[in-house]
Structure formats: structure tokens, C-alpha cells
């Protein structure tokens, strides 16, 4: 793969120690030195706001981790969003009180392609090479990018494993990935291209809004669409199926137990103004009533909200002692960080439905401490098959690749399941394949990574700790 290096340097009248200390602080200016980074140490998550347009209208977060830190000398960032690349900073003494600051960006061909596509240049249309094409619509930019860090990597891992195993019915498999930019219309445009390029199935690892848009584009065109992230349900058809956790099951595992351990009973619901939170909050109303609690208030904000001060005030005024968050991605990161900073944690306990490893990492150890969630997969959960999966993932993508999450593990398993269905029935219809996927859940032998029940996943309850999400219990199997 061709990677291009772009570099710039400048000499400043500060010592290397002073320049190094600017990084990630409010004193550091610009998109790199003004990074959001709670700790400047190797392995720490980092978020940089790439200025793509004037007035910040089209800014995009570069999300990654510090992969090498040498105080006063080196800061290296490995990032996966909006493309996979590396950014390095070097500080060398220049005279008695000066520092030569060098920045270098290693941009792979996919990074340049992403930039061009962002400006409207269509993605390349590869010629037919006889491979079976599978589309994956994930999110590399916009508020959803933070929960999608490992989605494309896990889709790639699944396809590499299928090909290493001889492909599907004698054909190699090729993945066509695309970024929906957390935008349903963009998801629809990418789905249109995937149909044109002959994809047999499109996996949507994004919002319910994007799933719905893709489902409409693909209806009646002989292409199967599979939603592979937790969702509120509904909107399915023979050629549109939905995998992943459902709010009613998550809430069952979270609401009553949290009330029992805290003695609290007044809930405030915080979510997004679209179909996902509408569905999740309706389920929450029922779960809370069943558990003998009450709903003290609700606040819905548009996806992409970054200032939650009004919501936090509303929670405080309501007298709620429990918060249910159905916010996703960057919105959830902002809300939890601001809640903690505002002291809301002193009077409330928070349960969050879309809280996976990457989102928690970007919330940070302080604001993430004590948050609870219930999902079907956690990277540190020692269920059968998981150590092997994590081992294969690290071998393929390295130490600093983002955590495997419930969302990315689901797209991985969904692609494998689909490949098995297609292998058995290569000439079947999309509807036939959809039905086969819906049937494939009858399994004995408990929860095994690589053969999870994606329709009614076994849920585990986990809590945010400084070390990450720690599994604290197993939910009763859902009915």
C-alpha cells in the first residue's frame, strides 16, 4: 500500500519540556496541541479536531491512541478515524532555549481517497474480478465515529479469515467499505454505489437512521441488508434483518438491579432526537414502571450535540437520582464528561445503553468511573473463544488497534454467518439468505465468541473502571 508522508516544522522559543507540556492542555493552541487527551502517556486515547472547513462547520475528529511517548522528545499517535494513519511529533533542542518542532503525517492511499471523497469525488469503481462483494457501511466521521473505531478492522478480519479458508463456494470475497459520516443520506448514497458494484449483502454498522435509509435504497434490488449494532427493532423485511442487543433486554439487566443496589428510584432519560432513543425510552418507561421506579424527566437532543449544560440543569432540577443515557458516540462522551465536571455524579448514578470500550475510553477514566451498561460482548470478558479472537485481531492490526467492541464483534460474526449461509446456497435469493440467517440462532452449548446468538445475544453487565469496562455480572437469558 502506498503511504505518503507530509511534514512541517517550526522553531519556537520554548524548551522541549515546555513544548511537550503544552500538548493536550488548554494552553496548547491549534488542532494538534489542543488535542483532548486526559493523560499524555503511551496507550492513552486522544482526539484531535481536524479543521476541514471554515468556521468549523465540517471539522472531523481524528481518533486514536498515543502509541509512543518520550517526555520532551516524542509523541506518536496511531489513529483509525477518519482514516488509518499515523501522526508523529518530534521536539529537538534548538539553541539554549529553543525547540525545533516537527510534525509528520503518514497518510495511506485510503486516507487520500477519504479526503477526496469528502469533497465529493466518487470512490473508485473497481473492475469485476470475480470476487463476491460485501459492502460495509460504518462510520469514520461525525459523532458516530467514536463507537465505530474497530468496525472496519473487524469486518476486514472476518473477510480475511473467510478468504484464508477458501472463500465462499470457490470465490474470493472482497470487502467494499464506506463511511456514512453519521449521515443517513450519505449512507443511502454509499448503498447505491454498493448495488451498482454488485454487492450481495450490505452490513450497516451505524445508526438506525442509516440502516433505515439503506434499507429503502436496497428494497427490491436483490441485496440483503444486515444491521449489526444494537437497535430498537422494527423495520425488518425478508431482505432486511437486524442483529444486536435490544433495549428491552438491556434495560431488564440494568434497571431493577441498579435500583436495588443504589436504593434510588427516580430516573431521568437522556437521549437523541431520533428513532433509536424513541424506541429505547419507550422500553425504559415500561422497565422502570415494572421495577417500581418513576420517570422524573426526559431530554432529547439532536445527534451531534456538544453542549449538554441545559440537559444537566434539567436533570438536577428534576430531583432524579438515576440517569439513563441512550446517547451515542461523541454525544455520550460530551454528556458524561460534562456531567462529571458539573458534579452531577454526586447525586446520580448513570446507566448507559451504547457504552462500549471505545466510547468509555474517550469519556476518560474520571468521568467514566461507575457508568454501567449491558451488552453482548466485552473485549475483556473471558468467554469461550474470546482470547483466540483477540489474539487474531492483535496479530492482524497491532497492539494499538482500538478495542474490539460489542458493535464491531457483531459485524465480524454477522459476516461469518452470512458467508456460511451463502456457501451452502450460493445461488439463493437475498430473501432466502435472510431467512437462513434468522434461523441460524438455534444453538446449544452456551455463549461462544464466533458462534454467538446475534438475534438474542446473551448480555453481560459491565461497569466503567479506570482500567476499562469490567464485567460484573451475567444477565438472565432473554425470553
Amino acid at each position, binding site marked *: 500500500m*502506498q*503511504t*505518503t*508522508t*507530509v*511534514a*512541517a*516544522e*517550526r*522553531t*519556537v*522559543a*520554548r524548551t522541549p519540556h515546555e*513544548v511537550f507540556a*503544552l500538548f493536550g492542555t488548554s*494552553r*496548547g*493552541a*491549534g*488542532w*494538534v*496541541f*489542543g488535542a483532548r487527551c486526559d493523560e499524555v502517556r503511551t496507550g492513552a486515547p486522544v482526539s484531535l479536531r*481536524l*479543521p*476541514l*472547513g*471554515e468556521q468549523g*462547520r*465540517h471539522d472531523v475528529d481524528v481518533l486514536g491512541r498515543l502509541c509512543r511517548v518520550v517526555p520532551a522528545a516524542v509523541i506518536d499517535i496511531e489513529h483509525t478515524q477518519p482514516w488509518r494513519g499515523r501522526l508523529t511529533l518530534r521536539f529537538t533542542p534548538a539553541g539554549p532555549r*529553543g*525547540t*525545533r*518542532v*516537527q*510534525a*509528520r*503525517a503518514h*497518510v495511506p492511499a485510503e486516507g*487520500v481517497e477519504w*479526503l*477526496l471523497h*469528502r*469533497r*465529493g*469525488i*466518487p470512490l473508485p*469503481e473497481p473492475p469485476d474480478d470475480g470476487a463476491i462483494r460485501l459492502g460495509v457501511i460504518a462510520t469514520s466521521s461525525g459523532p458516530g465515529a467514536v463507537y465505530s473505531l474497530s468496525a472496519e478492522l473487524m469486518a476486514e478480519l472476518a473477510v480475511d479469515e473467510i478468504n484464508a479458508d477458501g472463500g465462499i463456494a470457490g470465490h474470493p470475497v472482497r470487502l467494499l467499505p464506506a463511511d456514512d*459520516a453519521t*449521515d443517513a*443520506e*450519505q449512507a443511502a*448514497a454509499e448503498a447505491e454505489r454498493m448495488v*451498482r458494484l454488485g454487492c450481495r449483502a450490505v452490513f450497516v454498522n451505524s445508526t438506525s437512521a442509516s440502516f433505515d435509509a439503506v434499507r429503502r435504497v436496497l428494497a427490491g434490488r436483490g441485496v440483503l441488508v444486515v444491521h449489526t449494532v444494537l437497535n430498537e427493532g422494527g423495520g425488518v423485511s425478508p431482505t432486511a434483518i437486524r442483529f444486536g442487543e435490544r433495549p428491552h433486554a438491556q434495560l431488564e439487566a440494568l434497571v431493577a438491579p441498579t435500583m436495588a443496589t443504589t436504593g434510588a428510584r427516580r430516573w431521568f432519560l437522556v437521549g437523541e432526537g431520533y428513532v433509536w432513543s424513541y424506541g429505547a425510552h419507550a422500553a425504559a418507561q415500561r422497565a422502570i414502571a415494572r421495577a417500581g421506579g418513576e420517570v422524573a424527566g426526559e431530554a432529547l437532543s439532536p445527534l451531534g450535540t456538544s453542549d449538554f449544560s441545559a440537559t444537566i440543569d434539567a436533570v438536577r432540577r428534576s430531583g432524579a437520582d438515576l440517569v439513563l443515557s441512550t446517547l451515542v458516540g461523541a454525544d455520550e462522551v460530551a454528556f458524561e464528561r460534562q456531567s462529571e465536571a458539573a458534579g452531577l455524579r454526586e447525586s446520580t448514578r448513570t446507566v448507559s445503553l451504547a457504552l462500549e470500550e471505545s466510547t468509555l475510553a474517550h469519556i476518560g477514566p474520571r468521568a467514566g468511573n461507575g457508568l454501567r451498561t449491558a451488552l453482548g460482548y466485552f473485549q475483556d470478558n473471558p468467554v469461550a473463544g474470546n482470547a483466540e479472537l483477540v489474539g487474531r485481531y492483535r496479530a492482524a492490526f497491532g497492539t494499538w488497534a482500538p478495542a474490539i467492541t460489542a458493535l464491531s464483534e457483531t459485524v465480524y460474526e454477522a459476516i461469518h454467518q452470512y458467508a456460511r449461509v451463502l456457501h451452502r446456497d450460493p445461488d439463493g435469493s437475498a430473501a432466502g439468505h435472510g431467512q437462513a440467517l434468522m434461523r441460524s440462532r438455534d444453538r446449544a452449548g452456551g455463549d461462544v465468541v464466533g458462534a454467538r446468538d446475534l438475534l438474542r445475544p446473551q448480555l453481560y453487565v459491565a461497569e466503567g473502571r479506570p482500567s476499562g469496562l469490567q464485567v460484573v455480572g451475567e444477565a438472565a437469558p432473554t425470553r
Partner: protein
Amino acid sequence: MEPNENLAFDALSDRVRRRILAVLGEHGELSVGDIAGRIDAVGRTTVSSHLRVLRTSGLVRERRDGRNRFYSLDVDGAVRDAFVFLQSILHQAVAGAAATDPSTAEPAGTDGERDTG
């Protein structure tokens, strides 16, 4: 030249412009009429004005053949622009090390470098 609305990555916000680029990507070189015919609910005048912006931004090239004008994607120009953009944001990045310091050394030595490998 018009002011630089081109360098803003605003294609996402402008659906028509994005649509024009997609049509050119799919069909290669087309006339204004051909483009307008492939985009619903948008007339030739609108397409022409968007094409002007896209040409100024270096995303589209124009070819004249007698009285006709044909348009196609200028991918090479767009790639050049992408590197100019990356270079400019890296300069902004290192400038951040100096921005809050009143006694900044002269902004010399900002030569960029580009290599492929």
C-alpha cells in the same frame, strides 16, 4: 477567481454538487445538458453555476469543442489539492506550539517535504 469556498470540504453539505460529481464519476465526460438530465429536479442553469464552483475548486475540468463544453472529474487536481490541504494543516499543527507564546522565534524553516514510499 471566487473566494475560496472550494477548500472548505463542503461537498457533504451540498447535495447537488455531490450528485454532479457522482454522475461524472459514473459516466466520464458529459455536457451540461447530459448532467442536468441525470439529476432530478435541477435545471441547466443551476448545474452550470455548480460546475463553475467545482471548476474553480479544481474538482472538475472543462473541455471546449466548438460551441460545446464538456465536463469531467479532475482527480489529479483534487489529489494535488488534498496534499496542499494536508500540508497546510500540518503547518497549523506546529504553529500551535508557538501560538500562545509572545516571544515566538521567526516562523522560518517551514519548508514542507513530501515523499512517497
